């Protein structure tokens, strides 16, 4: 019995001593080594500190944040956004507005306006936001926001960005936001500062094999004007239409049938084209000079290459084509390719005016 108790005593003694040493040693080892922690690099910085998005269109400004050796992900937030002139808080940028967001991806294969609209929903957002972890700034397009928000040449806004992770927090102060006035469409004839049209029209470049009826030379002077109209057709929902018209030198409408090889059904990603005769012409479709599509704005909807856009997807591409037998019996295919975009929703009409000479549509 005595032996047993001594035995257990020794065992206990050994165990306790060993354990104590282990705990002591491992304990102090852990104290000696630094704990893993996230890092905020003191040299991390924004490469760009002034941002000038265009008003009334949703702009994603990719983060120009140079992380350096900062541990990712970090959390970004905009603080203290204020009027650069007065220093007053800029509530117009922090208030929430209903803006359209994409909930599913637009593919360019949608079959109806409803199908497109089903992919968009409305959410309330401040006009100027930063993405929590990416640091991208999003400048939301809200109709008529140019009446609320200061724009160039006004001094704009100052704001601070707080960047934080578990390793620390850094503030980037007095970054500038100077929005530019809205430009409703391209090709643009607007002055960015004043927001005014410099010319009443814009021009078009992509003319191929378009010869004048009078001069038989290549036509170059085609003036294009964008303007909003009030649709006469009650079936078309207000603010969702796009109309194309062509005019000769005397501003007489040109029948669209002259563009005999144009694929009107897939000219743009629009639906239910409505053909209408000009007031001076007969009612039949073959005589129509006006075509109106039901569309979703903006055009293009997103910067994504589809069958209706330029190859980089930044602009919609409408191709008006015709074919004729030219001099010597040669077939001549003429193309008027028109890359454009419209950012403001409305009932837009695009007028092409062959100012100097009308295209020669007829066979030689």
């Amino acid at each position, binding site marked *: 019995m005595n*032996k047993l108790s001594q035995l257990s005593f020794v065992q206990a003694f050994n165990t306790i001593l060993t354990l104590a040493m282990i705990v002591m040693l491992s304990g102090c080892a852990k104290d000696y080594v630094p704990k893993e922690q996230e*890092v905020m690099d003191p040299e991390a910085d924004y490469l760009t500190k002034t941002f000038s998005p265009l008003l009334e269109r949703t702009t994603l400004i990719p983060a120009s944040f140079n992380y350096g*050796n900062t541990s990712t992900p970090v959390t970004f937030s905009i603080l203290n956004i204020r009027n650069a002139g007065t220093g007053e808080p800029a509530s117009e940028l922090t208030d929430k507005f209903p803006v359209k967001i994409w909930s599913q991806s637009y593919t360019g294969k949608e079959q109806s306006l409803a199908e497109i609209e089903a992919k968009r929903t409305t959410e309330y957002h401040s006009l100027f936001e930063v*993405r929590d972890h990416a640091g991208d700034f999003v400048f939301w397009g809200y109709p008529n926001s140019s009446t609320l928000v200061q724009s160039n040449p006004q001094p704009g806004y100052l704001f601070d960005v707080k960047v934080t992770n578990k390793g620390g927090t850094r503030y980037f102060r007095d970054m500038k936001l100077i929005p530019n006035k809205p430009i409703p469409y391209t090709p643009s004839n607007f002055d960015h500062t004043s927001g005014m049209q410099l010319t009443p029209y814009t021009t078009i470049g992509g003319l191929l094999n378009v010869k004048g009826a009078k001069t038989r030379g290549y036509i170059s002077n085609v003036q294009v004007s964008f303007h909003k109209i009030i649709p006469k057709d009650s079936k078309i929902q207000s603010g969702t239409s796009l109309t194309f018209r062509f005019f000769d030198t005397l501003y007489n409408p040109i029948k669209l049938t002259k563009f005999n090889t144009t694929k009107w059904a897939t000219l743009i990603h629009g639906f239910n084209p409505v053909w209408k005769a000009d007031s001076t012409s007969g009612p039949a479709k073959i005589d129509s000079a006006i075509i109106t599509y039901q569309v979703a704005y903006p055009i293009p909807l997103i*910067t994504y290459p589809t069958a209706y856009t330029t190859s980089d997807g930044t602009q919609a591409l409408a191709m008006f084509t015709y074919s004729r037998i030219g001099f010597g019996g040669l077939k001549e295919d003429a193309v008027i390719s028109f890359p454009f975009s419209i950012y403001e929703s409305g009932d837009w009409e695009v007028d092409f005016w062959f100012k100097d000479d009308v295209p020669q549509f007829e066979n030689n």
Partner: protein
Amino acid sequence: MKVKNMLKIVALLLIIPCFLIAQNKITVTGIVKNGETQEPVAGVSIYANKKVIGVTANDGTFSIKVNEDAAITFTDVRYSNFNLKLKPGQTTVQVLMKVRDDKMNEVVVTGYAKKARELTTGSTVVITAKDIRDVPSANVMDLLQGKVAGLNINTSSGAPGSTGSIYLRGLSNPSFSGAGADAALTPTSPLFVVDGVPIDVNSTYEYGFNSGGPGINPVSLIPQEDIEQIEILKDAQATTLYGSRGAYGVILITTKRGKSKVPIVNFRTNQFLSTVPNLRKVIGGKDERMMRLSEILQFDPNFQHALTTIDQTPALTDSLNAYYNNSTNWQDVFYKSTWNQTYNVGVSGGDQAFNYKTNIGYFNQKGIIKNTGFSRYNVDMNMQYQPIEKFKLSTTISAAMGENKKGSGNGIMQTGVAESVNTSSLLPAPGAFGANSADLAQLAVIDNNKAAQLNTNFEMQYEFVRGLRATNTFSYNYMSGTENTFTPAIMNGNMSKSYAYNDLTGTLYNRFMLNYAKTFERGHSINLYGFSEISSKKYKVDAIQQTGTPSDGISGPLGAATSLGGTLSNTETRDVSYAGNVSYDYNKKYVLNAGAMWSKSSISGPNMPWAFNPTVGLRWNFSKEKLFEHLTFLDYGSFRLGWGKSSIPVGTIYDTYGKYLNGTTTYNSSPIINIDWSSAPNVNLIPATKTDLNFGTELGLFKQRLQFVFEAYYKQNDNNLYVKNLSSMNAFSQVSTNELGLVNYGYELTVTAKPLSASSKVSWTVTANAALDHEVLTRLPGEAKQMVVVDPNTGLGTMYRVGRNSLSNVMYNTKGVYASTGDVPVDPATGLRMHTGAPGNTIYFQEGDARWTDVNGDYVINQNDYIVCGNAMPLVVGGFSSYTNYKNFTLNVSTSFKYKRDIINAAAAQAFQRFYNPAALNQMLPIDQFNYWAPSNTKGVVYPNPYDFTRTGDYKATSIGNGTYLPFRADQTLFMEDGSYFKINSIAFSYNFNRNKTKKYGITSARLTFTMNNVYTFTKYTGPNPENVTDMGYDRSDGYPQSKNYSLGLDLQF
């Protein structure tokens, strides 16, 4: 026979004086045997009255003349002393010596001084010849795998003669050269000391792919048969006095010595078969052709383009070609099993006064890849002469030559074969008209690499007064490596190429040591010693390369189209150090050991003072306390605590002083001497320091049937070298600084058990060990807290973050596969699907694509979405071995394991990557075993669609770096796997023939062994082999697979 006769005469002459003195004595004859194996034991010293009166002969027999009542003691280092008291009238005895397995009685060497284990305060492990003799190996270090707690041997290559990385107690230096798949960590192998002569394997590796010289590691030149004992010193208490080079641990190798008056001739041979492991399955012939066709036709969105692709690939369409539907098994062309052998003859003899040993060995292992292999020739001799007790002289000469054939690889990796094997089976087998020249290179390139080594060592010892001894050790180590490669014209774009490399390393080393030992009354004893050490090392590398030699027959020296040549390196390093050590013990109960070393190296900066490295150790053998005396089950028990510091000179002399280049630039058409702007001198470069604290417990219970060693350590590595890039406004582009630090801490446990009782006929010893190591990065250059190092060659990154393990991967986090395009998240602001891609080539994710986590929520997958994960160093390493003996039979099993190591299974990634271009004629691997996306298999899929080749990039480094969509890039969590494994390293079965049966042939001992090596690896890892992985945890498919070896060995003693 003549020799034998002469020796008989000599023996007779030696015995005559005994006759003159001996009176009233009886003659006792008998035999000494190993108590376990019944083998006769030669060379056992027989003492009576503290005088040597005889030694057993090589057949274990002895004949002595003693007084009738004399107390006779039989001693041998391998066995416990055997005390004999003769019964009246007894004249014949049989002595069964008990093998010494009491760890307390081991003799260990620390700081060049021998001590009993119970007096050491450092952490050491001893491995004896018994544990490593059965498995033939080109490199003895491989045999230690799993045998020593805390020693992690990573055999990343199966090439004969290559050495894996050796880590003692975790990673010591996280800086590496290259990165990604080609990355190799700065070697931090322990210092090898062979018979007292240090051999450094960490330096001179820069031209030999981290293995020293032209692919031959000096460790590979140590013959396995000649090793008596290997001792591993782990903590600074044990290693501080080995100076700078011992900072990563010290491995002491002691070779055999003569100890039998009658010469012993030992012959040993191993005949072994190296077999090719399971190679990967490939798709061949018509199957391959049809698979390529269907991939192109199904997944090219442009039908015309698909037809063009097919039409432009004759291997798919040329039905009139003789090789149409050809199926070449490329692996079969290069891999084959080989039959190899080793022979070793050792002759030894002598006694304490004079002994000698000669060992001649030959080892040859042909690689399982054609045209590769390793052979070693060595002659080792040592001699010791001690005419009087005061004076001792010993010399060692060992010469070794290694010959290594690398084929077209670099000794570690077989990139040449990998390229060739990665060839479509549709192409014809090798031949000069073949499409693939790398395959011929492997077979036709003449490649010869030799490493020759000569080690000499001369030691004198004199005892001036009792207890005060002076020892001088002088050694010279010469090593030469040469490499000659000739590539015939047909293999190299019609330009024959010859390359010759030559390096010379000469190391001169001298140590003078004074030692004083005294035991006072009442049990106090002290041991003082001090030594000075100088070493000088010269290293020179020259290389010449001639391209376009006159013909395949004339490879120079004149007439080459281009000729390059010169000295790659020419350095001389000198080190001086002084050291002193005091040991004190009281009744062997309380031990104090303190020492210090002052050293200076020529490669440290001029501003660097002498490095001062102190060490202190304490030991308490508590079982000797009265309190524990009556505890019969406690054989021994002790605690020890050691602390020490050591410093390692880092960098080269050029890092400190800069470099001038002669004639690389010209001014006015004449060559000028210019500063080398690549690296800025840093005169403040200091040695790296290692500080460690070690706590150990040793326990022996139940008459040594259960023995424990437990250790806990904390190891701090400061001031490691890091090569920093300088910003481009500086004249210099890089500078080397001491700004890297890390800490290892962990625990080691070794248990030795004898489950069967001592009286059992079967003797069984089981040893198990495990070591747990935590490694934490503590300092980064420029006081940064985090750095990502991206390899420009592979585009793969490694994360260094303070507080984390240093080898962390940065990679994409894969969360399955998009079952349908509708599952891909859409950016609410832009309406775009999540995407990735190089600038100008945006790839929007769709069904069947990899679902990578968008960490920062910007709907773009790019480098900002990398996560940090994984650790290429294992958490726990260890092993388990068993030694069973029954009568004449012995079974020896050795295993090893690694637990929790992250491996990037790049081999699997590559199997998929091959599909990125179905028209490229590389090898196609079957992927049926993987659950990958297909139009018919969309739910719960693990791997993305491999066939979608038009949207994916080419997996080159630039593509990885610039964000091209690469669904099977290796740096994603999809391919990171747990590389834990349990491996049966070897099973050795041996049989000792009965001495009586062999005696008539003059054979005193004969032993037959059958061994299997690399028997089996248990692992969940899906790649080929969790061991064949680089130090960075990257399983590259062009590695050299490990062969399985079956060996038959014969060990004869005459």
